[in-house]
C-alpha cells in the first residue's frame, strides 16, 4: 500500500513542547506538551482532516509543519525534503509551496493594506511579479476566488466575513502552493457563507491539485471535506482512518463521544448521547496512562497505567486506533445514529 501512494507530507514523531517559565530568572519549571508524538502522512491532492477540542494541539501541529513554531522532536518531510533541516534560504523557497489560511477573517488581514497589497505582497517578497504583472496576477486570483478585480483597491473593512475569507484564500493561492493548512478556515462564518467557502476550497483543490490539512472542530464539516481524518486528544492522535470509515465505524471512545455530541439538524432524532463528563486535562500535567482515561466511560485499570500505541484494526480499511478496549465497541452503534 505504501509504495503505490505518493505522499506529499510525511510527519514522523512530531513533538512540540513549550517551556513554562517561573520566577525572576525564568527558570523552566515544566513543559506544556502541546504536540506529543504525532505521525501521519498526507497523500498529494488529498485532504487530511484534523479534529479535536480546543487545546488538543491541532493548531500547533499545523504551524509546526510550516515551521512557524520550532519542533522539539520529530521529522517532517515535504515533497521528499526534510523541512526542519533546511537552511533559511531553502526554507524561503519551500514556503512558496506551503501556505496557511486562518480562522478569523477579521484579524488576519491588515486593515491598513488594500486588497491588492494583501494578496500581492508575497509576489513582491518572493520577487515573482511586480508592477503591471503583479496587478494582472492579483486580478486573476481575485476572480478565481469569486471576487471581482475592482475590489483590489479596497480595504478589508469594506468586506463581509465571507468575502474576507475569500481574500485570505486568494492570498494563500498567490504563490501557487502545493499544500495549504486550513486552520479553522470556515468556523467563524455564517451557515450560508460556510457552504460557499467549502465548495470554493473543493473546487480549487480539483483545479489545482492542492493538498489540504484541514484543521477544524466541526466534525460534520470535516467529514464532508476530508479524505482521511485524524482525531487528536491532548497532543496525541487517538484514531486515524478514512473519513467514510470513521463516520461509519468510530472505534475510540473519544471519537464516539465527539460524534454523538454533534447536534443533528433533525428534531425527530433527539438522541441519547454519550455526554462526556469533565474537561480536557491540562497538557502541562497529562494524566498517567491513556490521556483520555479520566473521562472515558469504559476505562479500566490498565488504561490508567499504560498507554496503548496506535494499532491497525482488523478489517479491510486502513484504520488505526490507540485504545485498549476499542474492540468491545464494535457491535454497539454510536448513540442515535
Amino acid at each position, binding site marked *: 500500500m505504501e509504495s503505490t501512494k505518493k505522499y506529499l507530507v510525511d510527519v514522523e514523531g512530531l513533538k512540540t513542547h513549550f517551556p513554562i517559565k517561573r520566577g525572576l530568572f525564568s527558570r523552566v519549571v515544566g513543559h506544556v506538551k502541546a504536540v506529543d508524538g504525532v505521525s501521519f502522512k498526507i497523500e498529494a491532492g488529498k485532504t487530511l482532516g484534523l479534529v479535536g*477540542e*480546543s487545546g488538543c494541539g491541532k493548531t500547533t501541529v499545523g504551524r509546526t509543519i510550516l515551521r512557524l513554531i520550532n519542533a522539539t522532536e520529530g521529522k517532517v518531510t515535504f515533497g521528499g525534503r526534510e523541512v526542519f533541516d533546511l537552511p533559511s534560504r531553502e526554507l524561503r523557497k519551500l514556503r512558496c509551496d506551503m501556505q496557511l489560511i486562518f480562522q478569523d477573517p477579521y484579524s488576519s488581514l491588515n486593515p491598513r493594506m488594500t486588497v491588492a497589497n494583501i494578496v500581492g505582497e508575497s509576489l513582491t517578497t518572493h520577487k515573482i511579479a511586480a508592477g503591471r504583472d503583479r496587478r494582472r496576477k492579483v486580478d486573476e486570483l481575485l476572480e478565481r476566488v469569486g471576487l471581482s478585480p475592482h475590489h483590489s483597491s479596497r480595504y478589508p473593512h469594506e468586506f*463581509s*466575513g*465571507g*468575502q474576507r475569507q475569500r481574500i485570505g484564500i486568494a492570498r494563500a493561492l498567490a504563490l501557487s502552493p502545493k499544500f495549504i493548512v486550513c486552520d479553522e478556515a470556515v468556523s467563524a462564518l*455564517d*451557515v*450560508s*457563507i*460556510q*457552504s*460557499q467557502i*467549502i*465548495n470554493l476550497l*473543493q473546487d480549487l483543490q480539483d483545479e489545482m491539485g492542492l493538498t489540504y490539512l484541514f484543521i477544524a*472542530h*466541526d*466534525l*460534520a*464539516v470535516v*467529514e*464532508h*471535506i476530508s479524505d482521511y481524518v485524524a482525531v487528536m486528544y491532548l497532543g496525541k492522535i487517538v484514531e486515524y482512518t478514512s473519513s*467514510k470509515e470513521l*463516520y*461509519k465505524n468510530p472505534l475510540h471512545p473519544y471519537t464516539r*463521544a*465527539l*460524534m*454523538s*455530541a*454533534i*447536534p*443533528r*439538524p*433533525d*428534531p*425527530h432524532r*433527539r438522541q441519547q*448521547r454519550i*455526554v*462526556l*463528563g469533565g*474537561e480536557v486535562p491540562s497538557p502541562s500535567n497529562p494524566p498517567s496512562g491513556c490521556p483520555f482515561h479520566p473521562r472515558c466511560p469504559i476505562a479500566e485499570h490498565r488504561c490508567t497505567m499504560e498507554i496503548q500505541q496506535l494499532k491497525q484494526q482488523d478489517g479491510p480499511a486502513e484504520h488505526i486506533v490507540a485504545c485498549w478496549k476499542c474492540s468491545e465497541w464494535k457491535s454497539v452503534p454510536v448513540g442515535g*445514529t
Partner: protein
Amino acid sequence: MTDNDVLLSIRDLSVTFHTDEGLVRAVNNVSYDVCEGKTLAVVGESGCGKSVTALSVLRLIPDPPGKIAGGQILFRGTDLVTADEKYMQSIRGNEIAMIFQEPMTSLNPVYTVGEQIVEAIELHQDKKGSAAWNHAVEMLRQVGIADPEQRAIEYPHQMSGGMRQRIIIAMSLSCDPSLIIADEPTTALDVTIQAQILELLRDLQKKNNMSVVLITHDLGVVAENADDVVVMYASRIVETGTVADIFDDPLHPYTRGLLRSLPKVGVEQNRLDVIGGTVPDPLAFPDGCKFHPRCPIGNDDQRCMSIEPELRQIKPGRCSACWYTPGYETKEEFELYEKKYGKHKEISG
C-alpha cells in the same frame, strides 16, 4: 396554545440605530410569543436582528444610538417598552435573565465568581451576607461545579470556558427567573462541552419550569432543543412554526436554503448546496422581499422585487413571508399581481 400560556409576547417590534452612515433598521415588525415552560429558538445569520430583539426585551439597547421605534413587549401583560426604569430593574434578573455568548468577557476578572453571584442575589433578593453567599454556593452546585465552596472564592481566569459558562448560568438562575434569554450560549464552546451545557439548561428548565428564548445560528442546536422556531432574515421574521414543521416542511426559500447548505453527517455529498450572495447591508436593504437577490425563485420575479411580503399565518401556528408559499396570497392579490407582474413561476422541489 391559549393566551394565558403566553409569558412573553413581542408585538410588531421595530428597533432603529442612528449611525453616522444613516438610519439602520435593525429590527422590523417582529412579533413572537414565548409560552410558559417552552423553548423558542430564534435562528438567523449575523446581523439579522435576533440579538437586538432579545436585548430590547430587557431594554438593554444603548440609547442613543439605538431606539425602540415601535411595537410592544408584553411580559405577563405589562408593556416593557413603556415601563419605567424602576420596574425594569425589578424585571431584569428576577423575572427575565440573560446568558451571553462570551463566557470570557461577561464575567468581571477582578472579582471572585462567588462575589459576582452574590452581587446579583443581593441586588434582587432579600438575602444578605452569609445567606446570600450560601445561596451562591448552592447555585454553583446546581450547575454541576465540583467543589463549589472552593470554586466560589476563585477568579474567572482560573476556570475553563465551559466552567465559566456554567457560572454565568448559575448567576442568571440565582434569582429564579421565569424566562431565560440565551444568546448563542454555546457558540464559543467545544462540542462536548456544548452538549454538557445544553443538557444542563434543559434539566434546569424542566426543574424550574422556565421558558427559554434560545438565540442561535446552529440548526443542529435548534433541532435538539427547541419547541418552536422563529427564522429571521435581514431584520424581519420570514418563517415561524414548531420545530418539526420547520425541519420537515420549511416554507420559506431561505429556511430551505439554510437546511440544505448544512453538511450532513454520514451522508455522502459531492458538493454542498449553497445560498448564493451575501447578507444585505442594513443601510441599503433591497426593495421588495429582502431575500430576493439570493432567492432561487424570486431573483427575477417582479412580484418579489417590488413588494415586500409581510409575515402571514398560513395555518394555525405556522407563518411565512413569501409570495410563493402556497396559500399565502389572497385571491384579490393573486388576480391583481398576476395582471401587474405576470404569472407565478413554476417551482419544483
